[in-house]
């Protein structure tokens, strides 16, 4: 195959193939939740379990086609696909989805896979907004330092994104259930077994009819005000998506892109609201989010240090407050605030979650601002 044919193949593998798989997996996995009576545990019957298996198969097939896309793209341009914003964001989605699926599997929380896929779909779509044809790399980027530095930071961003999803889900679940929804071990240690029946639907497994289940779900859902959620999501997303409105030419295109992103996030938030009653306990969500953020923070720290080492080698200064460096530092400080707030017991629960949301907004805004708005040393072909 010629380079051009490989390039075409890689594009098709990305969209529609991988995109369709991710969307399909998200729909099926979230749908499977409604078939389970005991929020998460498929105690209600085989049907939910079967649907979930189909969804997971779709998700992993999507991961496979995504990997295939990366490989073909790499072949088409004879280099690792880590050279521009599209490639970075695409890999961020791959890391987020594969890592997220693996993580919920290892924690035996497969019911969360649908939300992982929802997040993966969003990041995959975000990358599509920055699509760039395969091309060669600038010689300055052609060094193993780049793999080290960029892959750590991209991995960090992917895991931060997954962490953000769980923080958002925590907020949704917490709003839906309030105080009464907390598991019996809230605040302290749970008594034996990570898989205790701590679902907010305090139902005896297998004994609740599906009709009652649907009623309870509706009641829980109703506690999340839809309009407030939609408006809040729209405004919150605007904190990041304004970058397109400001930086694109003509401005109308930028505004259209901003509104597209905002609308997508609002839809995603409303979908998440619909499935909020099937979420596991707030404790589980909180702890998953915290573990993810902690892991991403390590990647981010080491990746930033690696970046300083590369900068000393390449530009002759290790740190120069270049916009991207400043942005990376800002995100680091924001997430340090999140982790520190939790570690020192001062900040917990919803407040910690909101700090986490703010940190993610900071991360994404600085990522886009430093790439699209401000020209700095890092502005190579939009990386």
């Amino acid at each position: 195959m010629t380079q051009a044919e490989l390039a075409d193949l890689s594009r098709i593998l990305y969209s529609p193939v991988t995109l369709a798989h991710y969307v399909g997996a998200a729909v099926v996995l979230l749908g499977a939740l409604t078939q389970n009576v005991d929020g998460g545990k498929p105690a209600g019957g085989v049907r939910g379990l079967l649907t979930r298996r189909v969804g997971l198969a779709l998700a992993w097939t999507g991961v496979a086609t995504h990997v295939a896309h990366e490989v073909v793209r790499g072949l088409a341009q004879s280099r690792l696909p880590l050279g521009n914003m599209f490639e970075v964001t695409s890999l961020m989605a791959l890391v987020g989805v594969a890592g997220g699926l693996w993580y919920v599997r290892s924690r035996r929380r497969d019911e969360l896979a649908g939300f992982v896929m929802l997040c993966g779909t969003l990041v995959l779509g975000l990358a599509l907004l920055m699509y760039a044809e395969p091309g060669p790399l600038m010689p300055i980027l052609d060094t193993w330092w780049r793999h080290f530095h960029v892959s750590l930071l991209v991995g960090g961003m992917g895991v931060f994104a997954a962490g953000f999803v769980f923080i958002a889900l925590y907020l949704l679940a917490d709003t839906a259930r309030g105080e009464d929804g907390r598991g019996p071990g809230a605040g302290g240690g749970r008594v034996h077994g990570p898989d205790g029946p701590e679902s907010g639907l305090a139902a005896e497994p297998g004994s609740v009819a599906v009709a009652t289940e649907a009623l309870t779900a509706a009641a829980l859902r109703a506690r999340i005000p839809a309009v407030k959620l939609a408006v809040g999501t729209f405004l919150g997303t605007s904190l990041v998506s304004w970058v397109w409105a400001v930086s694109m030419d003509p401005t109308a295109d930028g505004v259209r892109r901003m509104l597209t992103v905002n609308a997508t996030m609002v839809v995603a938030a409303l979908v998440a609201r619909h499935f909020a009653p099937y979420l596991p306990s707030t404790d589980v969500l909180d702890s998953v989010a915290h573990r993810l953020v902690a892991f991403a923070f390590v990647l981010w720290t080491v990746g930033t240090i690696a970046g300083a080492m590369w900068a000393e080698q390449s530009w002759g200064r290790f740190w120069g407050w270049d916009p991207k460096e400043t942005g990376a530092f800002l995100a680091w400080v924001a997430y340090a605030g999140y982790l520190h707030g939790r570690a020192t017991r001062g900040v917990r629960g919803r407040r910690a979650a909101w700090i986490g949301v703010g940190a993610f907004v900071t991360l994404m805004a600085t990522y886009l601002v430093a790439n699209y708005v401000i020209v700095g040393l890092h502005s190579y072909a939009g990386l």
Partner: protein
Amino acid sequence: MSGGVPDGSPSPARFVWGSVGMGWRWLTRMRTALWMLLWLGVLTAVATVVPQAPNVPSTVEAWLAGEEGPGAGVSQLLLQVGAFDVYGAPIFLALLLALFLSLTACLIPRIRAWVRLVRYSRPPLLRAGSGNIAATYVTSRTPDEVLDAADAQLAASRVLGWPRWRVRRAETGEEGAPAQVAAETGLWSREGGSLTFHLSFYVLLAAIVFGQLLTFEGQRGVIEGEPGFTDAAVSYWMYDPGRWFAEDEHTGWRLDLDGFAVDWIRDPLAPGAGQPTTFRSDVSITRADGTSFEGVVEGNRPLTVDGRKIHQLDWGYATRMIVREDGRVVHDAFVTTQDRTGFFAGAVKAPAAEPDVGLELFLYPFAPDGPDGPRLTGAPWAEAPILLVSQWTGDLQLGLTQQFINELDVSALELGGIGWLRPGDTLAFDGPGGTIEVEFAELRRWVGFQVSYRPQLPWLLLAGGLLSVGLITALYAYRRRVWVVVDGETKDGRTLYRVVGRAFQRQDVAEEEHAALAAALAGRLDAERVDEERVPEGADA
């Protein structure tokens, strides 16, 4: 925290002391530290959005002039509050100082407590409510055998040759507790990691501060094939030594540029069209003692000479311009032109002419002849270079106004004429002092080199290493306790024992570890697990 406030009798000294104490306690509170971290973030956010003078002085000037950004008025306000140099502003330095003070005040008691902990701490005995993970077993061994086995089991687990657990054996009645083996671990690692992480900031700060004082950075342009420069204070175009860097620390080596290779993807339809593909300088270095060697400077490969790193910063075309006034040569030198996107700009200043002569140069590297004269493609490769010259006469104002090497101050100059030149061509202009001949004699390239000396790098690396290792340890190490306690006997004379655990962090991992430990111990004792509800009759707690 320190600084006790005496009770409120109204004496000025006491009031001051009380205020200081209050201020100190406020400063050292964790909540204050978090707020300061937030403000650090806010300042950094400002520095992300507002251009910073040390990085992009030209953008800052454009903001102040109102050509870019939010307008001249807002920019003036930003200038007043120091937003154009956030990291040099007093408020940033004050915040940094306060953060480090707060950190120090927080760390001193923590270090003392940690040292006491790792030196003297003994695992506490099991009491009601101590543990939050428990499993009960029954075995035919005697209570002593159970405790011996637990002791051995815990002692067998080692980290880098050191025992993992601190183990304490207690006989019945000690501190009023039943016979048991108590163990604890994670005392060193968890808090130690956190302390290492925080202490690395002092290494980082010291490396940055002393680095600023000891460092040196200089920049100098060198033309291909022309004499280069010697490492000495006077040779650099831009010279930025640290306060403690002495001029005699220059080692006096000499750099000459033998050749510079630069190329691009020239096919406009190819992917990545216009991207550079090569950027490399071949240089000769001659040390002060006369020994010399040849080296290469490339994008990610600086050349190191006597501990100084040599980087390529920028490059441009160097045009050799000969200017004659009535046949008398008044200027014959290479002019370094700078990339202005699409063309390269430079200037000739010839005060030797009477009156002064100045030339503005605009070089178009790839401008092949077309039907309507030269076609300016904007491409940077010098396949068909052409030079647009505007010739000025009058007063260059050298020494009177602030001058840039690449720009003419035309305020006291008069335009004499404009013309195009290919390499080797000569143009003649009529000037007040006679005929001005301008010859475009030769085209070469020049490279801007940066020479830097940073003795702080190993220390920065150390700080980065401590920070990473400390962080990973602080996030992933966890402190936990385990107790093996004999609960009594069953009616058939078998021993009933419990394995109890408590994790201070990472409950889920601790549960897995606890299960593995309990299973291994059960293996040693041929014990079988019994659930709490099914404890065989006759057991007494």
